[in-house]
């Protein structure tokens, strides 16, 4: 019996296997240094096979994910990824503790320096006082680039928050601090977050604003930006950065259902106030996913997205992508 079958039998809550193909205008966006980026059109064919399974039993949950991304004609964007996640939710009266961890391996066989392993731990304690829920969270990330150790980093963040969760909708504010340890430098940030969410039977929408004040740290030299490329772990992008800037970050996310159709939309914009040449000035990432049920187990899926970047000094970058395929749920 395969591991897959074992997990599915252990009360799988969700599982999928997707096969997609499409085009992307600049697949090297996640690999090249900002100073090397050229605003040229590089149409590329992409294909991917992605799978994942989520299972839970009692207070425990776990999931496995894997993906293979093929890119032609340039092979640098070929990516194999695998990840494992797990966690538990513990309750004592109105007190709740969520602990979770995950490890992701990304292998770029034709662009080895970009290969990395990423571990993350997370804990959230919350106290339910009716609709009001005070929270305390701790999070730590360690990302290692075995072929480029100088790119590796470790970051830790703690935050206190207060959520308001009436019968419908929710709101949350949080204040926190973060410490980032790069190869040669240490940076710190103060962070303030405000979130709003609302949902009904057929749609769900949330927005999240985050203000970051990076008080300490060395200027970004842009040779390997600590601002991780777009779409590639936004938390890393915000964590790893040089000091001496203020960043506004706005995120939108939502889903809607209409008959056999499911729509998911997300957008993430950043405005960084910094004077360092070659550093990120503003970024925008937007993605629209459509899913249509073809049968009980098979759905057609489609994605349209773009990532746009503007650097201090005027250079820019745009990556547009679209793909479609089939998703199978066992």
């Amino acid at each position, binding site marked *: 019996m395969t591991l897959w079958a074992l997990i599915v039998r252990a009360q799988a809550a969700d599982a999928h296997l997707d096969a997609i193909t499409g085009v992307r205008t600049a697949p090297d966006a996640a690999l090249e240094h900002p100073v090397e980026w050229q605003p040229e059109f590089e149409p590329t064919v992409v294909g991917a096979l992605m799978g994942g399974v989520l299972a839970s039993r009692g207070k425990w949950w776990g999931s496995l994910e894997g993906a293979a991304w093929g890119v032609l004609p340039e092979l640098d964007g070929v990516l194999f990824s695998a990840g494992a996640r797990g966690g538990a939710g513990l309750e004592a009266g109105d007190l709740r503790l969520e602990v979770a961890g995950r490890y992701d391996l990304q292998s770029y066989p034709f662009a080895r320096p970009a290969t990395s392993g990423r571990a993350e731990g997370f804990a959230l304690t919350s106290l339910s006082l009716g609709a009001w829920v005070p929270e305390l969270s701790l999070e730590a990330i360690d990302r290692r680039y075995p072929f480029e150790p100088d790119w590796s980093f470790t970051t830790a963040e703690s935050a206190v928050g207060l959520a308001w969760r009436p019968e419908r909708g929710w709101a949350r504010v949080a204040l926190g601090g973060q410490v980032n340890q790069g190869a040669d430098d240490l940076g710190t940030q103060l962070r303030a977050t405000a979130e709003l969410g609302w949902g009904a039977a057929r749609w769900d929408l949330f927005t999240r604003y985050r203000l970051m004040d990076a008080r300490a740290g060395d200027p970004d030299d842009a040779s390997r930006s600590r601002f991780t490329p777009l779409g590639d772990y936004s938390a890393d992008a915000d964590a790893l950065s040089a000091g001496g800037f203020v960043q506004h970050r706005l995120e939108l996310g939502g889903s809607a259902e209409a*008959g056999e159709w499911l729509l998911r939309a997300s957008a993430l914009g950043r405005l960084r106030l910094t004077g360092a040449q070659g550093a990120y000035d503003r970024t925008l990432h937007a993605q629209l996913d459509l899913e249509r049920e073809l049968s009980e187990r098979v759905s057609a899926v489609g994605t349209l997205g773009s990532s746009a970047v503007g650097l201090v000094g005027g250079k820019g970058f745009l990556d547009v992508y679209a793909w479609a395929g089939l998703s199978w749920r066992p």
Partner: protein
Amino acid sequence: VIVWLALAARADPGTELVRQRALVDQAASAVASARAEGHRRELGGLMAAYRVAAAELERMQQLAGYPAEDLALARREAVDSLRLAWAEGQRDDSAREVLVRWLGEPSPRQELLRQAVEMSRRAPDSIRRGILLDVLEQTDALAVLLASDTSLEEASADQLQLRASSLRRRGPGQTATMADEVEAVRATEQAAAALARAGALQAQRQQVLELRRQAVLALEEEG
């Protein structure tokens, strides 16, 4: 049950009224199903059909000479209100509360109704019809209550699944934050639990409808 047998002799609402209640229930069920499956184009026509059937039921109940201010009327209005809320995909907590106070927990009430149908076969002719009509009225109400609860559980599951969907990210090298991922996992689990509860409620409703069918058959055999 014995007390019930003693109290069962009551005004006969007539076979037509019984059939009309079943028609209204079917119409509400059709609207709720279309709404749950997202067939918005069909909703207008189905809702219009439901309103016609509900209006006819109200007219027939008035012609039957039901008292205007009594507990039975309040219960019937609660059934109608909850059925309408179910068809419209809404909730009506006050109507639900009336039915819960009347019927109590669904499972014991269902067992009581099953015993009543059984005992009606051995009951004297003079009260058999009264028992069966009472069973019909209570199964109608119980079926609406269970349908409404099923619909609310399904709506809750839909909402939780959409919430999880909003938080997830898929793409090359993309992932949600750990906090979002944990919330998505919990929402997925809660949605699965809500769907399981909806399935159990739906199965119980089918059993109640089967009881109702048995009562209708017994009434028809009696002529």
